């Protein structure tokens, strides 16, 4: 599990490159560096797991779950960095800051998906969050961006405090930070109020980090205020990492503890899905819509935690893949369109089908995938989750999820509606799509389509 070390080193190298005036090479170096790290991580698959873990004193565990999520996160980051070339074109002076922060966000995410020790989890979350606070406020002259950064920071810091307190209580009871030791302790001892309090605090913090109801209120404002690329970063890399950490911790340690409160957790899941869907329905701004759609998607993913006995990690990975790819397509198109029209409302998509039929097509695929229409990847993501939930008798959750999927179709199609049904506002819209956008959109759309046609390629890696 050296990806974390490599990524952090890459980030530091990029910082140094700024000093040596190699600014032009930072972005290409980051992209190629990450591609190499992805290659090395894929090679890790074949090596002996116990040897790798011993080398890191069980701080990180390189199991199938962490390796595959690491690869997914790195791939998503590469795509976002590619988009960054155009997005940061006007701010070339600050490119090293941005690239380095993105790499540190990734490093935090890698720690979060592969931790073997709760201290490592906390470190990962903090590295990711602190970098994200800066990214949210990156547009210094824009008031909404400042507000987003401030809001995110205050609420996020509070959640981190709760998380730390929870970990402390957990340590007080079990005497260990190690996930395996905590698990064994919980499995062999009776639950005490201290343990429950620790779990509850950690649960609240994690619900905040993934943006689940009733701790989701930061999401729409922060998503809306941040620069669009950074919103994409939050919606994909940060969200998937946070969820993977949530899943990893709870499925490893807290199954017996959460069991008596299954109904309560199911209620939270149902609430998250419903609140996200219904609020997304009302939005005028695309980014706010994506924020609420992210809330409801977090709820869908939490179905996997609610079905604690199932072998749901595959389903979570696939859902993360499908959601990440479709979101990046959507945000890439949105970034291009917003830059042209200067607005972030749905109206800015008007007439896109006429002026850029291919972009509109890719966006339609992304929206249909998010809405879960077969045979796109998003459909299989939902299918695997529903199927695991039904296998474990969570019929109520599946019904809630199905009802919300129906409603969700409406707001995803709203984008399609604006693209195909309205005329272009003024004639000067037609503009060439930058090459790097084209590459990213082709890659993600292909992944969405082929991930749906051949889901076996992603599911069942380990």
């Amino acid at each position, binding site marked *: 599990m050296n990806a974390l070390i490599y990524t952090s080193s890459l980030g530091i190298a990029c910082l140094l490159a700024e000093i040596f005036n190699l600014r032009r090479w930072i972005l290409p170096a980051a992209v190629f560096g990450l591609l190499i790290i992805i290659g090395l991580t894929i090679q890790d698959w074949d090596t002996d797991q116990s040897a790798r873990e011993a080398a890191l004193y069980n701080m990180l565990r390189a199991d199938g779950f962490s390796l595959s999520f690491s690869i997914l996160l790195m791939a998503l980051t590469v795509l976002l960095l590619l988009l960054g070339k155009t997005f940061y074109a006007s701010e070339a002076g600050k490119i090293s800051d941005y690239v380095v922060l993105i790499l540190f966000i990734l490093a935090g995410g890698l720690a979060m998906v592969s931790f073997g020790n709760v201290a490592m989890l906390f470190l990962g979350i903090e590295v990711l969050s602190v970098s994200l606070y800066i990214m949210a406020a990156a547009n210094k002259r824009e008031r909404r961006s400042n507000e987003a950064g401030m809001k995110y920071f205050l609420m996020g810091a509070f959640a981190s405090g709760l998380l730390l307190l929870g970990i402390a209580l957990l340590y007080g009871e079990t005497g260990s930070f190690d996930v395996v030791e905590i698990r064994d302790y919980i499995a062999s001892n009776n639950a005490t109020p201290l343990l429950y309090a620790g779990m509850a605090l950690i649960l609240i913090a994690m619900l905040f980090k993934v943006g689940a109801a009733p701790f989701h209120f930061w999401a729409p404002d922060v998503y809306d205020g941040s620069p669009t690329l950074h919103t994409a970063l939050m919606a994909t890399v940060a969200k998937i990492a946070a969820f993977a950490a949530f899943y990893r911790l709870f499925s490893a340690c807290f199954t017996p503890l959460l069991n008596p409160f299954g109904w309560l957790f199911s209620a939270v899941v149902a609430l998250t899905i419903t609140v996200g869907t219904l609020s997304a329905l009302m939005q005028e701004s695309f980014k706010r819509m994506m924020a609420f759609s992210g809330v409801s998607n977090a709820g869908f993913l939490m179905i996997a935690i609610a079905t604690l006995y199932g072998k749901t990690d595959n389903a979570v990975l696939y859902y993360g893949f499908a959601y990440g790819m479709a979101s990046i397509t959507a945000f890439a198109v949105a970034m291009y369109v917003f830059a042209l029209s200067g607005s972030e409302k749905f109206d800015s998509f008007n007439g896109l089908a006429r002026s850029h039929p291919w972009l509109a097509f890719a966006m339609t695929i992304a929206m249909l995938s998010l809405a879960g*229409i077969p045979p796109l990847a998003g459909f299989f993501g939902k299918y695997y989750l529903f*199927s695991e939930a039904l296998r474990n008798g969570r019929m109520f959750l599946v*019904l809630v999820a*199905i009802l919300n999927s129906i409603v969700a179709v409406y707001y995803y199609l709203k984008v399609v*509606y604006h693209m195909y*049904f309205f005329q272009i506002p003024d004639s000067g819209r037609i503009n060439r799509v930058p090459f790097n956008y084209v590459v990213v959109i082709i890659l993600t759309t292909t992944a969405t389509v082929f991930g749906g046609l051949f889901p*076996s390629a992603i599911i*069942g890696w380990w």
Partner: protein
Amino acid sequence: MLILVILSVALVGSILAWLSGNRLASKVALFISLLNLVLAATGLKLASEADFSLLAFSASWISQPKINFQLIADGIGILMIGLTNALIPLIILASSSRSLQNERVFYALILFMQFALIGVFAASDGFLYYIFWELALIPIFFIAWLWGDGQREYRSKVILKFFIYTLAGSLFMLFGFIYLYLKAGSFALKDLYALNLSEEEQKWLFWAFFIAFAIKIPVFPFHTWQPETYTESPTAGSMLLSGIMLKMGIYSMLRWLLPVVPEGVAFWTPIVIVLCVIGVVYGSLIAIKQDNIKRLVAYSSFAHVGLIAAGVFTFSKAGLQGSVVQMIAHGFNVVGLFFAGEIIYRRISSYHITRMGGIRNFAPHFTTYFLIITLASVALPTTNAFVGEFLLLYGIYEYNTVLALVAGLTVVLGAVYMLRMFQRVMLGNIQPSQPVFADLNLAEKAVFLPLVLVIFACGIYPHYILKLAEPAVDAILQAALR
């Protein structure tokens, strides 16, 4: 193997039509759909010689969950594929004489729709079937949405309602399929037939599937999307929806509902069959009052399919046979009716019956064709619908005499609204505002002539369809008796 060819020709055709550009798209699409018709005719010939070896194909697709790309067309399946492939060229021909925006996308979508429809009729793996079922929704949604008639804002509301309504139904079906998979460990049709489900399970699984099918057909009270969607769609869209797509629902009841949850069907039939019959009477009564010719046809279609669905739920040989014959008859008749409406609209730019009248004085050819199709839809003997309607009513009569009497009103009421419509549109005085009405041109005749030939062929020699469907119907009844 042939079945795979038929399926892929539609998909390849869709891509070719899109590539060929706006000017050539309609011709390319027509050519490919005719080619596919020949292939389907070959399939029908093989099936009538009881040789089904070429009509099955299987390849493994997804390992987890276990999903096979399995296509098996039985007698009914190949008949439905034949219906699809016969109607698609007619629909393309009917649209091609009217110029449209962005034609290559339009025709590509029609052929893509054909691909999905053939997939639905052939798939014998539940998951594959579900994917085709959903896939069929996408092209028709865009066809109706982007090329529809009427006011844009209103239309987009109507079409979105249709999309979400039908999608809602299918998601419950997905729920049902996942449940069945967890029980059977496979999506294959024969494994689902062999599954031992308790009566309780069958009772609720019935609704998971039935709602999806009932919305698509539509059965009362799930029909509220239908009249508006038919009215707002372009004529090609209404033809696709009513001619072929609603048959997906009835066909799926035969293939995926009756034999899979027979006890559930038996339990709920008394309620469901009454709903179907309510639809028959209700649709007919509303059709009488309609002024818009497309809405009238929409409600008449609603009434007709209510009768077909009632026939299916009698669970008897006569009812099932009748439903197969009537599905095919209704497909051709309703396409003919929508096309007649389209012809009038092209000439007087209105669908309102009050603005029509005396057309027979100008257009003898049109009048003749229209009359034949009108009489076929009121099930005159020697036309195709007579056999189907007779068998259906016979099946319902065996099930319950009173219901048969009520459902039999369809014959009377159908004659009322169809003949009244024909009288007001074609006969009577010439409208002063419409002093001329051009008769059919060649392309329009080329649509009507095959329709009329098929109407008589099926009416005079229904034995062919009945013989082809019989083994499949027996197999369904057999599977339900396990």
